[in-house]
């Protein structure tokens, strides 16, 4: 069982390629969400970033551990995305890589710890709290659900699936909130009524993680 469900470097590669695909597919949606309460670049920024990530994977030898893949993703995002999302997602992938260490495969608990590390990195960089209408509102329930699933004995793919589901719900739940961090906060009460673009992209990224692992997603 362990042999088939733990996550290796190939999974990490599939994850980022799948992320690039869904980000490209949802580029216009993310731009539109950001247009409503921000500056209309979130979809473009992530598309540019993950395209670069894929280009990098295509051009060089694929790193041999999941952490090495994630670190390469982190560096590429940091140097190509820009804006708020660049450093935040960059930090998330960097912390995720660090938390995984030099293991060849990621089991359920490590997967949950990896998501927690990513989430904590974002909070450390951006200082947002739950309810501020940011990607933290997707990462925090994702991390909690992942931990719950891991404790309940789920395998790694299912841990990711739990995280993805919670992230989706968290993203949807940002709609009525009034933003208190990031660009949307300038709008005050006018920020209510729209989902946060970063929370939505977080859900897409975690969904890609689960899909690449073959986890059972609701």
């Amino acid at each position: 069982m362990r042999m088939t469900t733990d996550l290796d470097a190939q999974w990490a590669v599939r994850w980022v390629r799948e992320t690039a695909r869904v980000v490209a597919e949802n580029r216009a949606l993310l731009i539109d969400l950001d247009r409503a309460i921000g500056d209309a670049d979130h979809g473009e920024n992530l598309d540019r970033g993950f395209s670069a990530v894929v280009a990098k994977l295509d051009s060089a030898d694929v790193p041999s551990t999941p952490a090495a893949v994630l670190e390469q993703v982190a560096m590429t995002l940091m140097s190509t995305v820009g804006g708020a999302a660049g450093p935040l997602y960059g930090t998330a992938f960097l912390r995720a890589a660090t938390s995984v260490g030099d293991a060849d495969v990621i089991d359920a608990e490590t997967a949950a710890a990896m998501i927690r590390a990513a989430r904590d990195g974002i909070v450390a960089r951006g200082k947002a709290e739950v309810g501020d209408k940011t990607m933290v509102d997707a990462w925090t329930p994702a991390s909690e659900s992942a931990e719950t699933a891991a404790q309940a004995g789920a395998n790694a793919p299912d841990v990711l699936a739990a995280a993805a589901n919670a992230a989706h719900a968290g993203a949807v739940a940002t709609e009525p909130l009034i933003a208190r961090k990031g660009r949307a906060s300038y709008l005050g009460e006018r920020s209510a009524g729209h989902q946060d673009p970063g929370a939505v992209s977080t859900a897409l990224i975690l969904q890609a993680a689960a899909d690449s692992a073959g986890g059972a997603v609701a």
Partner: protein
Amino acid sequence: MKKLINDPRAVVDESVEGFGLAHADLVTVHPDPLFITRKDAPVQGKVGLVSGGGSGHEPLHAGFVGRGMLDAAVPGAVFTSPTPDQIIPATAAVDGGAGVLHIVKNYTGDVLNFETAAEMAEADGVSVRSVLVNDDVAVEDSLYTAGRRGVGGTVFVERIAGAAAERGDDLDGVTAVAQRVVDSVRSMGVALAACTVPHAGVPSFELAEDEIEIGIGIHGEPGRHRIAMEDADGITQRLLDPIVADLRLTAGDRTLVLVNGMGGTPASELYIVFRKVAQLLDGLGVTIERSLVGNYITALEMQGASLTILRVDDEMLELWDTPVNTAALRWGA
């Protein structure tokens, strides 16, 4: 969307390339990673000034690279802050041994990317200080926002800190002058029509024929509130009042005033706004010592204007008047 562009994704590269060709006497364009330095950088013994941010605000920042102002500008994608891998080499390229000041507009993205770059440049042995420009009174500086935005005040910070650096002030001194400008400058903006981000292809918001947005920033984002169209004098009053209140301007104060176009507003309209600002400040007993009227910090082709007021003292004024030679601001040279 109709724009004089080729590939929407090449807008920044091609525009900066054209800028470099047009101002080859003033600047050098470093294409990859993209940044712009003043021709004679690094100036030995002088504090280097680096600013940057999303593109689409031209002439900010590249238009202010040159003697008496910035040593380097780092342009991001349209409305997207640049990345550390651009800021780090730009910082290194203008370090003449006296350290480098980062002038950062207060947006989460800019702050985070410049923070990272500063840390890494420091690790590479460059002394780096930062000032955060946050002059937009449309945004409450409270627990409930990311803090006030950096807008028109940036032009004054870049110019006056640039003059201090040119005068030979050390890094602490230049930083202090820059911070003093930040502390004394406030802005407020209005949009009559939105702009269209090239990669988005549709206007950033829709306004009815009789609506305007008050309290807008420079990223095509909606403002604080939407009101019915008013005449120029009425709108000017709305821009001025919160600035006067926030700066506590009173009779005898001396100021530097910028009436700034957002990109799509004719100069004639900006002068109509300036006229009213001058009348209103005169009524308050506040003196306009110097002024700028024109497109200095824009939001693509947005229609609208912003007002920026800096309370000046003798030193700031003296620094303001020293020679400056950049693409967008030039005198005494």
